[in-house]
């Protein structure tokens, strides 16, 4: 029980004192790590350490995600005396002996991974270190289920500082000065939001953490909650102090069971230690946090819809103003901040706004976490200073395009964002530059597409998502997007005309101007951005009735040419058995039966199949 800040600091000093276990072996145990087989790796390492009687000098730590999804299971070994560390990827249980035998050097035969990030709090960047980790500072470094691990890394020091040295106004001023903007996508200044709510006279105010990460292909909030849950709890208490709220809710997707479990553990630990609940750290400030679960509705990421969902209603948005900061949950002033926004707060309070502003750009200070996925070699989570060029992210950190194909586009902002072409790769990314290009920051999903992707089809995909997730309340979104989708279908099936394209654009712009909430207003972005950046693809669908990427099945067919040697490989792999022919003779595809899956095209070793 920490009933004052000195006890907390004392405990942190004890925990940081040199231990008899100078070597830390950290195993990434996030959802993706576990899915890739981290559990048997952990067991094998444990067994090996025990067999070699190294338990007294080696500490095995189960951590959250390091962000190296492409080479899970991943582990990091750190010598806390020398400060040296090494990261291994694609670790198998059988690698445990050689790893434990070579704790101070590189184990031969195991993949090593370069650390492409630095910790701005502790060190200066090296040459190859394009990443700066503030939000992910503890992910993959601490055991998220142990409060001591968090305390040892300056945990709850910011809350202590706020409660003992700062007025509520001073906290808001610090956040305002830092220039922190909402990381959920909109980019509204966080300090401003807090200020609005703080200025409201009300007996009750609420604070909500938006952990309804619905953007398909974005999983940074999950990584923070699974890897460093206390940092979010601490920041929520600070925000509560600043605006005068005593009750906080975390609205989290039901699809994230591990994050829910770790949050529950963390809340209980913090309450038992006097870091949440009544009289936090012996002060007269009370703050309680409760979990609320989503139930599979993307629109609930929109703050008014989210508030209705917590109230137990259908998650439909309402018109703003009034903004939630004035009238939100149960009609009371309410702040809704995203997980990643909260994860920045404690560092800003401890190290100051000036320190924070040293990273990133003038209008978008700090870092942003991106989830890199799609046709890219190194799928995973990265955290870069705002202003980093897309090219650095995709070709340096991401390792370039999968199978060395040609880059075509990168979608930022998920279904609300836009697809940026190769000519825009040198854009330094921040909120304003992405908006200027017709895309948006969004929550930080970044999906890379290559020459095999049809951009018309991609626009159709995102629209189908929006259709599915539209709550149906306002007409532009409900009916307008349905019409947009139908037009895109026409185009993909070869029934589109020049006129379809004109109508498509007019309607898209109308929806953008007239829809009720953020979901509807941004839903035409994928259409508008592909229309302007990939106009030639639309033209070839409409004029030549051709899909150059070979995706729109109505516009392509597969035929076997005279290069065929009759190896039968295609016939054996065809899922609908529509390829006939004798061994060593040219085969034929039955066009009526062909489902145009392209398996034959991809399996043929003799370039004997043409896609026309």
């Amino acid at each position, binding site marked *: 029980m920490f009933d004052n800040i000195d006890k907390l600091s004392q405990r942190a000093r004890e925990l940081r004192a040199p231990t008899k276990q100078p070597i830390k072996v950290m195993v990434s145990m996030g959802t*993706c790590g576990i899915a890739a087989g981290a559990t048997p790796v952990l067991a094998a390492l444990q067994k090996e350490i025990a067999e070699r009687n190294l338990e007294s000098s080696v500490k095995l730590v189960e951590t959250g995600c390091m962000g190296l999804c492409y080479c899970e299971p991943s582990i990091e070994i750190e010598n806390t005396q020398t400060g040296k560390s090494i990261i291994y990827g694609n670790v198998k249980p059988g690698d445990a002996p050689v790893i434990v035998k070579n704790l101070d050097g590189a184990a031969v035969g195991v993949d090593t991974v370069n650390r492409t990030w630095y910790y701005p709090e502790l060190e200066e960047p090296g040459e190859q270190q394009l990443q700066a980790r503030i939000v992910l500072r503890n992910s993959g470094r601490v055991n998220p289920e142990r409060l001591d691990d968090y305390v040892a890394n300056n945990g709850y020091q910011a809350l202590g500082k706020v409660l003992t040295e700062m007025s509520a106004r001073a906290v808001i001023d610090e956040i305002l000065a830092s220039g922190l903007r909402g990381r959920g996508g909109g980019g509204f200044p966080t300090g401003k939001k807090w200020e609005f709510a703080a200025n409201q006279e009300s007996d009750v105010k609420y604070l909500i953490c938006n952990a309804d990460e619905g953007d*398909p292909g974005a999983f940074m909030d999950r990584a923070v909650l699974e890897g460093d849950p206390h940092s979010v709890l601490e920041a929520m208490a600070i925000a509560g102090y600043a605006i005068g709220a005593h009750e906080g809710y975390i609205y989290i997707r*039901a699809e994230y069971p591990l994050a829910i479990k770790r949050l529950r553990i963390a809340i209980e630990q913090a309450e038992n230690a006097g870091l949440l609940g009544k009289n936090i750290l012996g002060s007269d400030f009370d703050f309680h946090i409760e979990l609320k679960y989503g*139930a599979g*509705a993307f629109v609930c990421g929109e703050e008014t819809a989210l508030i209705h969902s917590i109230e137990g209603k259908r998650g439909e948005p309402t018109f703003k103003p009034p903004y939630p900061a004035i009238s939100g949950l149960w009609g009371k002033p309410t702040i809704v901040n995203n997980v990643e926004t909260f994860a920045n707060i404690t560092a800003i309070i401890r190290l100051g706004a000036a320190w924070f502003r040293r990273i990133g750009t003038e209008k978008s200070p700090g870092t942003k976490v991106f989830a890199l*996925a799609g046709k890219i070699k190194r799928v995973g989570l990265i955290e870069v200073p705002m202003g980093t060029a897309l090219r650095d992210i995709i070709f340096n950190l991401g390792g370039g395009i999968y199978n060395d194909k040609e880059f075509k586009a990168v979608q930022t902002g998920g279904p609300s964002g836009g697809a940026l072409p190769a000519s825009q790769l040198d854009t330094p990314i921040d909120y304003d530059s992405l908006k200027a290009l017709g895309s948006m920051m969004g929550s930080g999903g970044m999906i890379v597409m290559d020459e095999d992707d049809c951009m018309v089809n991609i626009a159709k995909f995102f629209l189908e998502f929006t259709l599915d997730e539209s709550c149906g309340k306002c007409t532009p979104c409900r009916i307008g997007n349905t019409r947009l989708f139908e037009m895109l279908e026409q185009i993909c099936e070869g029934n589109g005309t020049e006129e379809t394209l004109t109508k498509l654009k007019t309607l898209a712009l109308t929806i953008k101007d007239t829809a009720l909430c953020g979901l509807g207003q941004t839903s035409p972005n994928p259409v508008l951005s592909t229309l302007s950046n990939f106009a030639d693809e639309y033209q070839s669908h409409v004029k030549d009735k051709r899909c150059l990427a070979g995706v729109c099945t109505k516009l392509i067919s597969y035929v076997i040419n005279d290069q065929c040697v009759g190896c039968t490989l295609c016939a054996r792999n065809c899922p609908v058995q529509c390829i006939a022919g004798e061994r060593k003779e040219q085969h034929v595809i039955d066009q009526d039966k062909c489902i145009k899956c392209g398996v034959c095209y991809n399996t043929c070793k003799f370039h004997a199949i043409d896609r026309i």
Partner: protein
Amino acid sequence: MSCHCDEQKPQELNLIEEFPDKRKKLEEYIQSLDIGNNREKNRGLLIQSLHKAQDIFGYLPLCVQLFVADKLKLHLSEVYGVISFYSYFTDKPVGKYKIHVCTGTACFVKGAGAVLDEFKRYLNLEVGETSADRKFSLNSLRCVGACSLAPVVMVNDKVYGKVTAKMVPDIINECA
């Protein structure tokens, strides 16, 4: 309030009456919540109660909806409105093997569409349907966050990564 399941769908079991132990479990959960006379506050407990009810019964037929409405002192229309809005809740029975094909963006660009089509063809089911023998139900879902394994298929809690159309029969056979 009494349950009218029998009147509406004669073939459907009244789960609340058929399974007293499950009913008890749900009742105990709802009673553990802080239910007062403030309707608005009670409503805030609805979604978590429905999560629990679906955990226990597998789905949320009318009799379960009525039971929850009764316990939380809410109208059935409010309960049904929530169930029909959120995709996580279902009022239809689901199969023993719940097949979910991820159609998030990362899986989509890596070919989830072809995988889903093959499941539809192989099982002769549309998305959202359950086979007549209640063995399989087929659904799509948006992003499980395992984007490095794309395309991903989940069967109950088991994750299959880098799935191709060709692997579909094997995945189904593994369920037997």
